[in-house]
């Protein structure tokens, strides 16, 4: 379930991650084959803070589907804090990281490790898949944002973790910061006024033209 997070934001993050992972799969046939062998597997990622549940489903085609909502039972369930998941995602020795971390695992770990291998090898190209998924307008913006986060994150994967947790925590609340809304509102009002002025100018012009005839 999406709990108290806005499904729009959760979906946006998952669309981005899914697109990047599937793009990674296209460029990494070995992982793609490993994953395809597990078609139908459902992995539940049960994050305690921020509180969010995500399901990763291996499709028949070997692509990965990420969703906040899934009704059938999961084959593996991993529970923990966001920082633990991010540590696992970037770990060089995932098995050791798993043992030493506070992540709680129910079920078979092999799909989890296959996914980890894939994610840690990834050099994501965000643009193309996002534009496919979201269209030019949002896709391009989101790609820019992610490129920024990712580039910056590669420089320091610890601060990536922190930044990402903050980003998700903050966005997850999605009551847009009041100041930003006010600003946007002012801009919209100003635009409206300009349109009104333009309109009355056009009317004046039209009247003057009519009078000249």
């Amino acid at each position: 379930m999406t709990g108290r997070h806005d499904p729009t934001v959760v979906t946006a993050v998952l669309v981005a991650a899914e697109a990047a992972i599937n793009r990674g799969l296209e460029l990494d046939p070995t992982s793609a084959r490993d994953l395809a062998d597990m078609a139908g597997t459902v992995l539940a990622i049960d994050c305690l803070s921020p509180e969010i549940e995500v399901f990763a489903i291996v499709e028949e085609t070997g692509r990965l589907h990420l969703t906040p909502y899934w009704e059938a039972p999961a084959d593996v369930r991993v529970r923990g804090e966001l920082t633990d998941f991010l540590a696992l995602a970037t770990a060089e020795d995932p098995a050791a990281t798993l043992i030493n971390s506070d992540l709680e695992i129910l079920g078979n770990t092999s799909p989890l490790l296959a996914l980890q291998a894939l994610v840690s090898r990834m050099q994501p190209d965000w643009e193309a898949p996002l534009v496919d998924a979201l269209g030019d307008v949002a896709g391009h913006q989101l790609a820019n944002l992610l490129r920024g986060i990712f580039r910056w994150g590669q420089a320091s994967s610890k601060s990536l973790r922190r930044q990402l947790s903050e980003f998700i925590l903050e966005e997850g609340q999605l009551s847009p910061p009041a100041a930003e809304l006010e600003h946007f509102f002012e801009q919209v009002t100003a635009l409206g006024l300009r349109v009104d002025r333009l309109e009355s100018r056009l009317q004046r012009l039209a009247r003057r033209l009519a009078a000249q005839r």
Partner: protein
Amino acid sequence: MKNNDAADDPGTTHFGFQTVDRDQKESLVRGVFDSVASRYDLMNDLMSAGIHRLWKRFTIELSSVRPGQTVLDIAGGTGDLAAKFSKLVGPDGRVILADINDSMLRVGRDRLIDLGAVGNLQTVQCDAQELPFPDDSVDCITIAFGLRNVTDKDRALQSMERILKPGGRLLVLEFSKPVSPLLEKVYDAYSFRVLPLMGQLVANDPDSYRYLAESIRKHPDQETLQEMMEDAGFVSCEYHNMTGGIVAVHKGIKA
């Protein structure tokens, strides 16, 4: 809670903020969609900055549609949802893209053919208030940004309930009421100022987009729509607010 859509006079209803004869509304709504059909997809992307795709994707997740099922997307327009469902139900399933408006359906059909989703897909021109399908015949019905255009929403909901199989589900994706007053203020300004302007610039049709903005305000809020679904016989009704309640998706199950 009946007849939420009707103005006080039972023979009239709303067309945006205007009050019009019930019969007239249908042809006015048709006019709007006739005139926006060819630019519809582009405008959707621009108006919502692409976010409508996220709303639709989440709606599809909530549908839990499986291979082999029958799905009806009513007021389906240019077929965004139908295209996704066509993949989900696979070759053994069936997807019906239905809309009252032939221009929208035609754009939808062409687009779906381009996407290669035709084998399990059919298009039907029909009215959501009188769905021409047998009782208990459909596993899932979706109506995305369509219910607010329907004159008698209660009748439409009853018609959907009738054709769903017991245990089948209805998903209504529609504009709703922003949860924060500030967001509501911004959103009002956006839809009454910016939308008609965009409609003017891109589609050269500010009136249709003004109608869209007005019809959004006349649509029942979250709780009201949920009650209407319960009145129509749906059980386990619930809704998810999206983007601060600008949009909500309601789910109901046929008992």
